[in-house]
Each structure stands twice: as C-alpha cells, then as structure tokens.
C-alpha cells in the first residue's frame, strides 16, 4: 500500500491526536496563522485561489472565491462574520468529527486565518448537537488558545445545534444561529452579502477550514500539486458499510474507488460480492461494481453520473435490497425535511410511501412510474437541496437496479425474502409517528 501524504491530519499517526497546545506549537503549529497575519487579507485569498481548495462540505465551491465575494469592510460597513459549519449530518459522513477530535488546533488555526482573510472579528462554530466530546475538545482547545493570547481580538463562539440535518444547509444554519426556526432562506441575497444578522458572512465546512492551515503552511501553489486537476489536495474519505476496515482515510483526490475499498478498506468482508457504492454521502447517486475503477475526484465522479459530495463512501454488498435502501434513505430525508417548501415536505413522504408499497409487494407497474414521476417533480423545484437529495438517490437506485424493483412488483414480494442486510434495521414505521400535542383550550 502506497504511503499517502497526511495534510489535514499532519502531526498525528494511527489515529492519535494533538490536544496539547504546547505539543502542537512545538511541532510547528500556528506558523500558518503567523504567516497569514503578516499577509494582507487579499494575499491570503490569493493563496487559497492558488491552492485550488474547494469546499469539502459537499458543494465543492472554490474556497478562495467564496471569500472574495465577501465585501471589504469599507464597501459594506457592517460586522463581518465567519461561520463554520460543523453540523455534519449527511449519512455516511463522519470526517469532521474526527478532525475536531484529533486536530482541533489545526482546525481552529484555520478559523483564525479565514477570519483574517475576510476581515472578520467574529467566528461562529455551529456544531452538531450530538457531538458532545467534539464540543468539549474544541472548548478546551479554545480556552488554551485564549490563554496563549492567540485569538488576536477575534471572538470565537461555539454554538451547539439541536439535532436537525437541515441546519447543515448554510442559510438554515444562519437562521438557527440567529435563534429562529432552522429553515433555509431564499437566495439571493447570498450569505456573502447578507448572511448572519444580514451582514457579510462566509460559511465554510470544518474540513475546508482545517485545510486552510496547510495551504498557508505549504503555500497555495505547493498544495495544488497534490491531487488531480480540478480536485487539488487531499480528502478525508469516510468509508463505511460492507467493508472490512471502515473509518476515515485522508487520501489525495483521484485515487481510484478500487484502491480505496480494496487496498485501504480491505474489501468486502466474508467473501461477498460488491454490489453498489454511494460515493459522496447519501444524497449522491449510487454507482455499481462496474464503476469500481472510477477515480475519486470531482470530474471523474460527475462523468460516472454521481458526485463526490461529502466524500462519505458507503459500500454495499450483494445482500442489500435496493428497495429497502431507498426506503431507509427516503425516510431519512422525510424525517429531516424542514417543512418549509411544498415539494420536499410532501414529496419525500410520498416517495417513502410508494417505496414501502413496492417493498411490501402491493405495488402495480403504475406505482413504479409514479415513483419516478414524483421524484422528477421534486427535483429542481425545492427551496434548498434537501428534497433533491432524496429524489437523486432514489432515482439512481431505480435507474441502476431497475430489475430488482421490477422483481418486487412481478413477484408481489421482496425477492430477498427477509434475508436483506437491511431487514430489521429499517427505521421502525412509528419513528415518524406524530407525537400529539395538546390542542388549544380556549
């Protein structure tokens, strides 16, 4: 197995962490911050542009360009905000938590560099509510940095979410941070112009921000040499599912799926056949064993008909019923739909119901057509990408495994006959039961 550079997790080995500020500094920590503070904000952004770093949250938007959209303080004399999206909740994605647990100073150093880049004095880290330990590590690390007088006048606020996937959507996150109901805003205006408290705001993912530190350490041009064209640098892949060694692996973009799953992940356990791979978190289109030599970078995955998304790679072996997978994924989006826009609120529920009918063997041919039509009617019509995510995923399952869906209809039952690997781990049907509220008594 070839050695791969450790960029995000630099300074750690075999899952170790650097939680002591002295140790971090001794190993060269905060040099990037000092270097950045010696540069003008524009020069910092220029380094980011040169690095080719693109957003690791899933949208892959160039980080430097995002920052350049934030007006200069003299152009828009309002407070400027950096908001870090640490509300990691995409099924199959668990990289940010490991970054925050193992290299918290590298992450926080990146926050301060980014704040300098957009000339912000206020950093908000919106951390997923369930991330208890991660929150404590960040809190302790921040305290240590404050004692070491490293914050440079910047206020860093750790804000804990309350368990809503939608708050990972940047505008819903901003609403939630402002104390409102976590629902996406319409764009425009974009957060760069009117974000948190209607002021200029950059919203970045934890891994993106952590990568800012090595970009400054190495220099943008040097960083850009890693990875492949359009997808520079390394990526923390979250490998999960039917694989021998699941976990987070930092690898250069462009590594093949085969290398990732077989060489690094140890392949499919118990000699089973690889059936499908979800390459970038549950919202990306499924690929099959035929796609196993696809390179794990932005362009290659788009060409393969999917997306790198959040680089959460879910390996699926031949025991899995793809209708059940559809139900599981659709239930998730139905449950997490914020309820603001119609197609998502109604459509995700309807999709789950049709899938359940197919799985139960009650469906007719027309139901399969209806499923595709409903997905189609969700696609591209919602306020934010949540509804689309459900439709994209389910459409891809039907597209790639049409025969299996057809078999459910033809046989009038699930062909796996109770033997699917997802049997029994589907969310219980009453998970979504309405917890009745007292009604108004007047």
């Amino acid at each position, binding site marked *: 197995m070839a050695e791969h550079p450790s960029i995000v997790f630099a300074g750690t080995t075999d899952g170790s962490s650097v939680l002591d500020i002295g140790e971090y500094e001794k190993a060269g920590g905060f040099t990037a911050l000092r270097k950045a503070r010696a540069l003008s904000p524009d020069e910092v952004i220029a380094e980011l542009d040169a690095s080719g770093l693109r957003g690791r949250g899933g949208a892959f938007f160039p980080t430097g360009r995002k920052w350049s959209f934030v007006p200069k303080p003299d152009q828009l004399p309002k407070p400027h905000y950096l908001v870090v999206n640490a509300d990691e909740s995409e099924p199959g994605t668990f990289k940010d938590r490991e970054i925050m647990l193992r290299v918290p100073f590298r992450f926080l150093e990146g926050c301060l560099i980014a704040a300098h880049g957009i000339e912000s004095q206020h950093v908000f880290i919106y951390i997923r509510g369930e991330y208890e330990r991660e929150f404590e590590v960040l809190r302790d690390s921040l305290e240590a940095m404050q004692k070491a007088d490293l914050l440079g006048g910047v206020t860093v606020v750790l804000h804990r979410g309350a368990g*809503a996937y939608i708050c990972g959507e940047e505008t819903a996150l901003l609403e939630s941070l402002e104390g409102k*109901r976590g629902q996406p805003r*319409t764009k*425009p205006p974009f957060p760069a112009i009117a974000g948190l408290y209607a002021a200029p705001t950059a919203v970045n993912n934890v891994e993106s921000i952590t990568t800012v530190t090595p970009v400054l350490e190495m220099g943008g041009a040097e960083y850009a040499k890693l990875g492949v064209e359009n997808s520079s640098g390394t990526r923390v892949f979250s490998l999960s599912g039917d694989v021998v060694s699941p976990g987070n692996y930092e690898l250069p973009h462009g590594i093949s799926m085969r290398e990732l799953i077989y060489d690094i992940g140890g392949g499919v356990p118990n000699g089973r056949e690889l059936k499908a791979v979800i390459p970038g978190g549950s919202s990306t289109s499924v690929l099959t064993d035929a796609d196993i030599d696809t390179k794990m970078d932005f362009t290659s995955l788009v060409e393969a008909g999917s997306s790198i998304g959040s680089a959460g790679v879910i390996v699926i072996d031949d025991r899995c019923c793809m209708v059940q997978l559809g139900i599981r994924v659709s239930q998730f989006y*139905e*449950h*997490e*739909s*914020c*309820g*603001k*826009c*119609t*197609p998502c*609120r*109604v*459509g*995700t*529920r*309807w999709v789950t*119901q049709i899938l359940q009918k197919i799985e139960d063997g009650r469906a007719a041919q027309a139901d399969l057509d*209806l499923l595709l*039509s409903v997905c189609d*009617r969700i696609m*591209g*019509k*919602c*306020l934010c990408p949540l509804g689309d995510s459900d439709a994209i995923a389910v459409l891809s399952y039907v597209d790639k495994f049409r025969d299996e869906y057809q078999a459910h209809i033809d046989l009038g039952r699930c062909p796996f006959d109770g033997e699917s690997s997802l049997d029994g781990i589907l969310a219980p049907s009453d998970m*979504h039961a*309405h917890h009745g*509220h*007292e*009604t*108004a*008594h*007047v």
Partner: protein
Amino acid sequence: MSELVHVTVDDREVEVPKGTGLVEAAQTAGIEIPVFCYEPRLGPPVGACRMCLVEIEGIPKLQAACTLTVAPDMVIKTSATSAKAAEGQEATLEFILVNHPLDCPVCDKGGECPLQDLTFRHGPGNTRMTFQKHTVDKPIPVSPLIALDRERCILCYRCTRFSEDVAEDGQLIARNRGAHTEIATFEDEPYRSPFSGNVVELCPVGALTSTLYRFDARPWDIQNVPTVCTGCAVGCNTSATIREDKVKRILSRNHPEVDQGWLCDKGRYSYPHLRAEDRITTPLRRGRKGLTEISWDDALDEAESMLREAGSSIVTAFSGSETTEVAYALGRLLRTGLGAHSAVLPEATSDALEAFRLPLSGIAKAELVVVIGDDPVVERAPIVDLWIKEARRHGAEVVVCSPTGTEKTAPGAGAELCRELAAGRSALAKKLRASERAVLVWSGPGGGGGARLAELAHELGFAEKPGCGAFHLPSASNPRGVALGWAVAADADETNPEPIELLFVSGDDAASNADVRALAERANRVVVLTMFHELAGGWADLILPSTAALERDGTSMNLEGRVQRIRRAVLPPCPDELAWISKLAARFGVGVAPHAAGVFSEVAAELYRDLTLDDLGGHAPLPARHAYVAPAEATTLDPAESPSGGLKLQRYTALFSGPAVERVPELGFQRPDRDVEIAAGDAASRGIANGDSVLVRSNGTSVELRARVNRKLLEGVVRVAEEHAGDLHPEVEVTKA
C-alpha cells in the same frame, strides 16, 4: 424616476423600474404568475409554496418568481409559454393537494379560494395519491374568533409571518418539522392580538376561518358593500359582506395610504352588535309607568313639544362618531331652528394640524417617530400602531413619551413636553428639527385636540417639510367632521344655557360617557338617541332608536383629515336619522335634505367645494395641506400630576370596550382583564407580586383587582381600564387583598 429595466414575459416586452419583483413585472405585462405564500405586505418573500415557478432563459432550473427581481433583458417564461414551468406549477399543486381535503362544498373558502382557482387553471385533473391523507383533529380553536383546520392548511406561513413580522406579537407559530409541521399558538394559548383577524383574510385556503362567519354564507349568495370602519378615527376601508339583508362579516378593502389592507379585530368583529338582544327599534317615552313604546309619529310630536319648551336652552352631546351629515342636520334643526348653539364633544378638536397633513402611509417612511400622550397608540388607533411598527422595521427611531413609553413622562405632561421640544434644547428636539422625515403623534386625552402638537410642528418647520407630519389620535371616529358639520350649520356663537332645559344625547358613546351623564343630572329633560335600551333606560325622558354605522349613508373625516364615504350595507330596523331630523326640522321651518347625498352637497358647498360624493366612494384622496392657522391658546392646562403621596390613577379606554364590543360575546377574551397595572418599584415597596389580588382604594371606595406588574410603567402611576375602575378617584392606594 428610477432606472427602467427591459424584460420579456412570455411574448410581451415591458420596461419596469429596477428592483421590481418578477411577479409584479409579469403583472405589468398583463400576465399572472400564480402565488400562495407571496404577499409583499408581509415583508421579504420566503419562496415556500413554489407555486410561482417560472423558467428564466439561461438558468437551467425553474425559479421561484417571487424571490427574484428583474435583471436587464431577462426573459421570463410562465406556464403559458413554457411546458417546464407548466409542469412545475402542476407539480406544486399536486403536492399541495396530496393532503388537502377536498371538502370544498362545506368549506367557507369555497368559491373565493385561491387554491380552488389555481387548481382549475394550473392543476392536475385528478389525483395520483392513493395513500391515506394526513389527518388531524379539527377544527382547533386558535381563539374564540378563529378556527384552524390543519388538514386544509398548505403551510404558506402567511399567518405566522403576519404575527411575527407585521403585528409583531409572535403568537402564531409553526411547530414540528417536515410533514408534521403545523400552525399553532405559542403554548396553545388563545391568539389574543388586536389584529388577529387579518390572518383569516391572509389565509389562501380555508384553514383559518372566522367563527362568526363559519357556515353562514357562500360566496355566490353574498354582496360586498364598500364602506369605511367607524371603530376609531383611522377610518379603515372595509367591505361589509351581506347575505339576506344581514351583515355576515367585515373584510378589509386595501387603501394603501390608510390601512394597507389591515383591519383590527374591533373593526372586523363588532358587527354582531347590530343584532344585539337589547337593541331598540321603537321610540320610548317616560310616563308615570316608566318607559313605554310609542309610535314614531307620537315620538316626533313629543320631540317637537320638548324642543319648543326648551327653546334655545338645549345642549347637544355628540358621540363624535356621527356622520358629518347627521351633525350638520342636527345643527340645522337645533341651531337654525331653535337657536340652540351649545354642543359638547368627548374631546377637543383642532384644525391646526391640517398644515402638517401626511397620509398615514407616510409614517412608514419616517426616520423618527415621536409619540406623545398618555395612551398607547394601539388603544386609540390600532392601525397607526402597525404603521409605526413598519417604520421601526425600516430602521426608524421610535420615541414614545408616555407613562409606559420609552421616555417616561407623567400623565398629562404632554402639552408641557411639546413646549419643551419646541424650545429645542434636548437631543430629541434637535433631532426633530434636523429631520426631513419626522412624524409626531398625539395619543391620549388633552393637548387641545392636536392644537399643542400643531404648535410644536409649526415651531419645527414641518409645514415646509413634505416628509414630516403630525397626527392627533382622537377617541372618537369622526370628531372633526361632527364639529365642522355642526359649525357650518349656522352662524352664531356658542352659548352656555343655564339651566339646561334639554340635553340632547346623540349616540351610544355619548350615552355611555360619564361626563354626559353628569350633564344630564343638571338638565331638566333628556332625549337620547341610542341603539340600546341599557344605555338610556334609566335617565332618558325620550329615547329615539338610532342606526348603526353599517346602516347609514354619509361621510366621515378620519384623523388624517381625509373625508371618506360610509355606505349603507343593510337597512336599519328603524328610520334613518336624516329622515326624521328632516321631518322635525320642517316643523321649525328649516329645510334639510332627508338623505345623505343631499345633506352632503350642502356641507360640501361650505367645507370642501372640490369634493363630490363619488370621489369618496372608492379610495378617498387626502386633501392638500392648508396654511397654518395658530390654534387658540390653551385656556386650561391639562391636569398635571398632583404632588401628594398617593398613586396617580390612569383610567384608560381599552380598544376592546364600548357598547358595540360589549355586545359581542366572542370578543370577550379581547377585553381588558380586571387588572391594575403597577410599576415594579411601587409593587415591591408594597409587597405586591405579579398576579396578587389587590385592593385599589380612594376616599372610601375600593375595587378588588389583580396586580399586573408592568416594568415599563412610570413609578407613581397605576393603570386601570375604565370599565374596571368603578368610582375610584384620581388618587389611589394599592394594598394586598
């Protein structure tokens, strides 16, 4: 003129001002982009319902038109020319209808329902949904006035946005998430806001319905009569829905300068008082056996003889809510016919503010709003409160100088404050003088009916600043119109007859006014014109049944000085005032037209020559500013705070009070609680906690009330609603019961 942008909507090219929304741009081109959640009056668009999806050339995905503004040479394709947009709109409707019950035949909204209309135009012909629809308990009483059907709700969030962003009461909320999202009130408390009824009108489906209108009419068997609300001096434009000669509901009728289409619950829900049980329709005369019903012929004979006996020794007590025409006609009868020139109104009036006239919508554009006076704006002129809130949302500074305001001032200190601000030494005075967009509001008794405020505005140079204005919020709906109508009816100075041979009490508000009752004690005989037996039964010698505003024709002058037309929505159960005043006047040799149109032309000839009744029927215009005429100087000072040790009792007239409100049981929950508001310090020093039972005492009389600790209230002052204040004197003491 702002920059114009050229856009194409379907096959039509239009030029619209930069910043125009796509829905409005399409409208300019004569093309409708259908919407549910979009409502510009509620603030920025939310893009929730997805009904307005359109195709925009160069953008692959369909776009929500309501969230976008025009860009140069934008090409917008609606469902008329884009199959993709048509499919998108059909998809939205299909999703909306998935859980919407098809109970249109029993739904109040059926026949005037945007969802019905848009489904016919853009929706699918049948349903592909075969699963059980989402069902919940219904209807839920959001309040005694509003029922919520959560199955019909399409979650457009109009109601919650109104509550949060317009009324700013924050009571209506969405709770839960996704498919389980539902509209509710916070903690399931009743939605108690002066503006709650607006959400019924905003609802684009039958999810929020009025309990007073539920199952009462269908849109095809009603008529809507355009009229004007007389609940307060704002004069909100309304439509009265009529079915079988009965008023079934009141709707707003958007006058963009006056009300913006909002209406308070008093204006919206008071109409059932027309059918109150104690309404009188036959005249009553006091005899040896008490009050007995008499015929109208007898009543007119009786009135004639009473008037003849009294001669000029008559005092007329107006409510201030009469039409200008009725005031004029009474003036012709009593002044011209009998030489009885003495009349009283509940509050002073002044014409001096005409020099600083501004449409109410001008408040929203202000950068500085200064409210002076003892009463909260919402209690006197609720819609003005919404205009001020809008100004504040736009960034205006709002300074309220009152016992409960941002600047604590003692009761009755408003006139003195005006003089101080005119002298210009304080920071606020300097800001007022420097501003090009400042608005002054007098909200409370005293102040010479706006005269003191006019002196201040004059001193500040407001007459030369078109963005600045000053408003007086009177307690009645048409005091200026009544005063003017009375004044032009004859040319003679007021006399103060002593003794008062006859007191003529005009209307319910006058009949329930304590000062008028006191005057009646001094009068030998009393004639009361009223709708309700209870208001006059004990003290009138002759009771003449009166009509309600919804049963009258005429005009009313609102607090801007705008003359608006009131239309008769239903026939009154008794003769119209003008009809019998005309008959009675004829017996004294005075000619008065027996109908509003005729009287109006007489009044208009004197007062507003350039106006015709037709001008006032739709959206009445605001007359131009007049030159400033200095008002008479204050003859008496407003009662200032007395220095002695007790607490100063401030009696206030709550918005939800008065003879009409009291006769609508559904409005009961809106009426003031039996509370005494007390400042935090005063409560603490007396060992009183919020919610405690307390005795409010003065000079041997006492009332038991519940203490409400008001942290905004000036120390030394307690507030009690008029209807709960009993016989308390201005100085009180409060102790734990």
